[in-house]
């Protein structure tokens, strides 16, 4: 039996309307004659959301006693025995009460998909494993429940529910998200424009990367994966001859030298503006000296703070190594330091590094980062 198809409604934060939109689409499917059930709904006492669920079949929850409290969880065996065409399941990142089939709801969803049932689910961007640390640093609030990033990349479709921070705050103030007694506390803590803007930026970028990942065929693109759906994955891809990737990836080519810090900083700034990933590469043509090792350690610490990836590759031909790394990592932008001055014969015998890189990397932009020490020398002349 082919696995079901998974559609995820992704939001930057609670209250953007993920559940509402999921229910709207569920209703549309039901009206089109499909067998749709509500596997689990968390309406948070929002009347508009509850109204949207009207008319859909709701599967009963399971009552579990945990530490003396009665909790209600999604009934996985109930969904599997009911076997609808489409099941709507809210709160993908939820942690189940102990004693159920799985620890996490996303694992329940995988089982539902495995049974050939299509699933619509909802999740907030903060719950993505790879973004959890970054978003905690940005917002100051740690979210404990996480889901593997693979869920997003393997989903048939990811729908971003976007709303501007101002509109979201207006909705909160109007009592459309939380009850009146919780509004002020939410405004004072999490629902700040700067937090919401940062989360929105990350959510938009994540979906853009996801779209790009889906459009690039991989080796297993013709084989339906565990969550790949009943159609071959490549049917979902855009034509590979379509205009190329819009997501940028920057590569800083450095040597372990104090000047490298400036190249990394300039590259990081560009990466921030472009919303791009950043790789830092040193092509080691020989064993590093003690000084170089110290510089490399400092660069490693800098890269870790910036969230960049430091790569050390061995090789005699710098251009060939850069070419390979750029191809493997999907580099769109290469930044190098100011090349050392060369003598006339050297210039005659061999093109400069920047020229060779330009020739070897068609389609990759090249930027040379100015060296302040040279500006100083020029002024003193």
């Amino acid at each position, binding site marked *: 039996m082919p696995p079901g198809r998974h559609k995820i409604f992704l939001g930057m934060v609670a209250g953007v309307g993920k559940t509402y939109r999921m229910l709207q689409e569920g209703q549309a499917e039901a009206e089109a004659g499909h067998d749709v059930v509500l596997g689990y709904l968390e309406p948070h006492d929002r009347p508009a959301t509850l109204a949207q669920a009207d008319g859909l079949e709701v599967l009963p929850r399971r009552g579990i006693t945990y530490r003396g409290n009665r909790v209600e969880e999604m009934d996985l065996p109930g969904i599997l025995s009911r076997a609808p065409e489409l099941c709507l399941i809210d709160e993908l990142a939820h942690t189940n009460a102990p004693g159920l089939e799985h620890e996490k709801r996303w694992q329940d969803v995988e089982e539902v998909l495995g049974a050939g049932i299509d699933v619509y689910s909802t999740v907030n961007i903060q719950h993505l494993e790879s973004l959890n640390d970054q978003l905690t640093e940005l917002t100051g609030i740690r979210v404990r429940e996480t889901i593997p990033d693979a869920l997003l990349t393997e989903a048939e479709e990811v729908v971003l529910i976007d709303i501007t921070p101002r509109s979201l705050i207006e909705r909160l103030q109007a009592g459309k998200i939380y009850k009146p007694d919780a509004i002020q506390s939410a405004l004072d803590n999490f629902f700040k424009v700067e937090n919401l803007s940062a989360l929105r930026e990350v959510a938009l970028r994540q979906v853009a990367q996801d779209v790009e990942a889906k459009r690039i065929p991989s080796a297993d693109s013709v084989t339906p994966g565990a969550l790949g759906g009943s159609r071959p994955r490549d049917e979902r891809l855009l034509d590979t001859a379509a205009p190329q990737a819009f997501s940028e990836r920057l590569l800083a080519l450095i040597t372990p030298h104090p000047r490298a810090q400036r190249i990394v900083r300039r590259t990081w700034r560009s990466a921030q503006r472009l919303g791009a990933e950043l790789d830092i590469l040193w092509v080691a043509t020989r064993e590093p000296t003690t000084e170089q090792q110290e510089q490399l350690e400092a660069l490693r610490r800098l890269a870790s*703070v910036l969230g960049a990836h430091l790569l050390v590759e061995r090789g005699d031909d710098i251009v060939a190594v850069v070419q390979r790394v750029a191809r493997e990592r999907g580099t769109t932008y290469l930044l190098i330091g100011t090349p050392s001055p060369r003598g006339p*014969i050297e210039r005659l015998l061999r093109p400069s590094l920047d020229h060779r890189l330009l020739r070897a990397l068609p389609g990759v932009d090249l930027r040379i980062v100015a060296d*302040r020490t040279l500006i100083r020398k020029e002024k003193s002349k």
Partner: protein
Amino acid sequence: MIVLVVILAAAVVALSIRSFSPQRRRQEEPAAVALGGRVLFPFGAAGPTSRALDVALRLARNESGTLVPVFLARVALDLPLDAPLPRQSRIAIPLQEAVEQRAASFEVPVDARIERGRSYRHALRQMIVHEHYDRLVIAARVNGGGGFDAEDIAWLLRNAPGEIIVLRPSGS
């Protein structure tokens, strides 16, 4: 004709020897690292005061040394110590650039660092473990401005090897 060819060949050989001479290459390499000592200059998210920075730069220049400005990043307890810190990077990178720009006007080479820790003291401890230096210049804080607490400075004086120069807050 033959003489002309020989002269030309000799000129080419002479030029190539000059081009490939390691000594010449060394001379043409921009001098980003000074021969003198390393002056460590830590600061936090409030950034260094221009007075403290100028003192550190003058010291480095007088000794033909290198300034090592160290941004100390505090990592919240609920984050792994090696987690990326995008928010603090947005503060640290412009500060490092500003320090480097100022250093360029003093003609002092810079070798910048970012150190992280659970607190400033923890980051200072990491800094003295990772860096070799000849002098450490640190600014004392007053009335919540930039610089370091008396306790942190006392801790450094007890634990950091090498010469430590403590700058009084201006006006005190």
